[in-house]
């Protein structure tokens, strides 16, 4: 019995410690005064790695999600003689929910896992310790540029996702199924508002970028420096970020819409 209680206590303490450690790492890395001249090329490199290399997967999945929405929406709205609302349906569904959420999930799978594995590998091969030996702060040199790159890339990726998704819906609804072009766009323009829909979308995207990158970086930084530890940390990154994104999406939606 005492063993059991002790186990519970150890478990809780471990979780709280890791949360505290991640917060400390987070603040140290983002508020550490960066040397702009040195940090900028690092940041550019990381945006290339996190953002530019994720474009293909984001564009392809955005296109197909838009096309599926267009097809399903058209066939269902046809029953109500309301195919004129297709533009509204596709644009609101993508901008309010699917755009930020799906691109964050893809981001967690594509970039988050890679970040964790990379940093875990740096730790396992003791390169982080080597940096500390050379009086280079690994938090500033390794963590901070990746964090900022994630925060910058995520809204851009989600904007691209929304745009291509809406054009995917147009491709199916207008070009293949014969809905009128003007009706598609005017229905959309009447119902989508910059301040009510686009800005909340960007807020969502930035928060998801924040949470995914943070989880990925912390899991990498905190992993056990073995190959098994790295693989566990990578799995934990994808699971935790997906859950965090979906949970946070509900809260943000409840707050903003």
């Amino acid at each position, binding site marked *: 019995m005492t063993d059991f209680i002790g186990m519970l206590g150890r478990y809780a303490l471990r979780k709280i410690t890791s949360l505290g450690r991640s917060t400390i790492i987070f603040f140290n890395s983002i508020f550490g005064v960066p040397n702009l001249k040195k940090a900028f090329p690092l940041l550019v490199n990381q945006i290339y790695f996190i953002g530019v290399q994720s474009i293909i997967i984001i564009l392809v999945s955005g296109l197909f999600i838009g096309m599926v929405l267009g097809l399903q929406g058209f066939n269902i709205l046809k029953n109500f003689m309301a195919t004129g609302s297709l533009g509204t349906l596709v644009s609101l569904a993508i901008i309010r929910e699917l755009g930020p959420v799906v691109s964050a999930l893809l981001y967690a799978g594509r970039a988050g896992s890679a970040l964790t594995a990379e940093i875990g590998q740096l730790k396992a091969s003791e390169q982080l310790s080597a940096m500390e030996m050379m009086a280079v702060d690994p938090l500033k040199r390794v963590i901070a540029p990746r964090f900022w790159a994630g925060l910058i890339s995520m809204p851009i990726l989600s904007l691209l996702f929304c745009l291509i998704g809406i054009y995917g819906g147009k491709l199916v609804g207008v070009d293949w199924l014969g809905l009128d072009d003007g009706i598609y766009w005017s229905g959309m*323009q009447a119902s989508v508002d910059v301040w009510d829909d686009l800005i909340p979308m960007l807020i969502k995207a930035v928060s998801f970028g924040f949470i995914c990158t943070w989880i990925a970086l912390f899991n990498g930084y905190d992993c056990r420096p073995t190959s098994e530890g790295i693989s566990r940390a990578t799995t934990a990154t994808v699971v935790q970020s997906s859950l965090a994104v979906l949970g946070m999406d509900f809260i943000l939606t409840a707050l903003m819409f």
Partner: protein
Amino acid sequence: MKYLKTEILVGCFMLMGIVAAVILALQVAGLVFNSKTETYTVYAKFSDIGSLRLRAPVRIGGVNIGRVSGISLEPETMTPIVAIGISKEFDKISNESKASIQTSGLIGEQYIAITPGFYDEEMGTTYLKDGDYIVDTGSAVILEDLISKFVFNSSVKTGEESKKD
């Protein structure tokens, strides 16, 4: 020039983001930069505004000339007062005009339709200006009321008919 290729690609990436944001704002959200157009506000009392909402369009003959800028209740008479912002461009609207709340389509959004009245200085009519009241108003037609009226009337009629038989 070690970072050249990366820098170009990252630059393109950022540019794509900005372009996407602009296209989304203009094409999808239909953002128009005419928020500077000045408006003047006139008021209209209705007995029932139905489900009229803030920012609902105000139209003359189907053309948007402004938006509903405020809805409130006059405390003494308990009648709804709607503030209508009309853009300064349309300043030749007679105060004999009629404002009525109409529905676009069967179950669509409600809007205010203004039917222009005559203008004759000798008869004492003026153009609407800031703070004026539109006297002649027509309240919202509520579909549920119409249906209940119809159902009620037809049931009464069938009752009378069955008595005759």
